[in-house]
């Protein structure tokens, strides 16, 4: 059997006395969308922060395609193909869409010692990407991020992750504060990301949004993964909600 894209084993994270993660296990396959669910304080954010290199883990191991990794920073994780898109999506609001898309990986024109960015190429790629995200209509690629809506910013961040061939795109509450049309755009973009070979971890409070796109649902409770193989096509929203709150075990027990 081939190695999964991501394997987290017995990962723990403590903040002083508080155990935010207690030996959690998670695997993510290739071209798979996972919905990560759990109540507030269940450990979703901490798990994601550990996986994206934002916080160091206290104990446990992370493997990318079978190779053990240790992330000291978010740029470490990005270098391993793991891209996290937060609410404020880590964009530079003063810079344009194009300049944000290519920040840190600007293509250069020849001769390279002049250090000149290849603006024509950058704009061409940006136009194409924005069309795929569905926000190309009236927005020129030179628009500063500061004048975009929340959904448009999310989409720019997702577009960036896709263009740079991140293997795993982690979306932390990407549909929060979005309008109906914007939500639709982001969801269809997640599907097209999967179809072109990327994996996603999708965290959302709105369980219905999760059901619409994911292949597999993982539920966390009290710092642990308590269910990791729920198929949304064969499970009801109610049943998943019971797992999240811990009601199902009490019923069984």
């Amino acid at each position: 059997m081939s190695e999964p894209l991501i394997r987290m084993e017995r990962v723990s994270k403590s903040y002083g006395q508080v155990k935010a993660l207690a030996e959690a296990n998670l695997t993510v396959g290739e071209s798979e969308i996972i919905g990560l669910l759990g109540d507030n304080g269940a450990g979703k954010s901490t798990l994601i922060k550990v996986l994206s290199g934002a916080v160091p883990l206290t104990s446990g191991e992370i493997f990318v395609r079978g190779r053990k990794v240790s992330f000291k920073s978010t740029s470490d994780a990005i270098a391993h193909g793991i891209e996290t898109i937060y609410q404020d999506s880590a964009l530079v609001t003063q810079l344009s869409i194009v300049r944000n898309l290519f920040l840190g990986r600007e293509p250069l024109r020849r001769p390279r010692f002049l250090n000149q960015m290849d603006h024509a190429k950058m704009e061409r790629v940006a136009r194409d990407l924005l069309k795929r995200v569905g926000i190309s209509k009236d927005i020129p690629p030179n628009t500063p991020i500061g004048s975009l809506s929340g959904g448009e910013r999310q989409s720019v961040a997702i577009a960036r992750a896709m263009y740079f061939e991140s293997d795993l795109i982690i979306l932390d509450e990407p549909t929060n504060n979005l309008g109906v049309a914007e939500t639709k755009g982001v969801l269809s973009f997640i599907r097209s990301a999967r179809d072109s070979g990327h994996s996603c971890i999708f965290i959302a409070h709105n369980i219905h949004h999760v059901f619409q796109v994911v292949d597999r649902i993982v539920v966390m409770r009290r710092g642990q993964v308590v269910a990791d193989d729920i198929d949304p096509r064969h499970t009801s929203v109610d049943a998943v909600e019971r797992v999240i709150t811990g009601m199902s075990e009490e019923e069984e027990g």
Partner: protein
Amino acid sequence: MKNRFLQGLLAKAELGPLILLIVEIAVFASLNSDFISILNISNTLAFTVELGLIALAMTLLMTSGEFDLSVGSVFGFSPVLMWTLANSGATSLVVAFFVAILIAALIGLINGWFVTRLKIPSFLVTLGMLLVVRGLALFMTNGFPQRTWSASGAWLPRILAGEFYIGDFRVYASIFWFLGSAIVLGYVLTRTKIGNWIQASGGNPNAARARGVNVNRTKAGLFVLCSVMSALAGTISSIRTSAANPDSGTGYELEVIAMVVIGGTALTGGRGTIVGTVLGVLILRIMRNGIVFVGVPGLAYNIFIGAIILGMMALHSGLERRHNAGA
């Protein structure tokens, strides 16, 4: 389309300073026709471009979210060091010049190291450096001006600050250093990868770091640039005036920062404009010169400068709000 062009023009940070500069020149010229005489323009330009060299470097540094209060001290210290070395016979003037530039680069590196590695705000770091460098200049010279000799024959002074005439119009070589630096740094800021990193470092350093931008090295490099340009400006000024005072350049840091913000560069970083800075440099220097010409007491100069800064800040913050509102 035309409307859009007009809107784009109105949203440009440089438009306000440009209008101010035109109005300023028009007012002074109408009050005293000698203001636009060849002699006055030539005299005004000589020192303007020297301060301008520092302002250009400061523009990039401020775009990256930092600033440097030690530039005035470096401006005074570098020529003192150069002349002291040359007068002592230890080195030739040319070697002394390059030693002075190298020491300035080191000062910039120390500034950058304190700010990026020790995470101390640039205000405090460069305030400390202002005192250290000024103190060095005073200590080295016992507070006395250094002896300078007419170096007009040598090639280095000629390249740095040599004078020549276009008709009756006297020009110093420094204007070419200024124009060349403006073009190069304008290109760096707007067209290059480094420029993108500078803007991102000032706009959202954490986002930039996450994308693999080396924010610390970018900022440290700009501190070095700022110091080196101040040393260059100081030595040029010293050669032109045949003077090396250990206390020269006092207060220049604030005048330079004022020039940069009047031009439209954000004090908080993320957005900068070289064209704006060139306009800001001209606005302040022409104001100083024009006030004297129209008979306002020179001591009233600061009232006008302060008023210009406040007015321009109001304009820029208005533009910023419109910009963020998506207008």
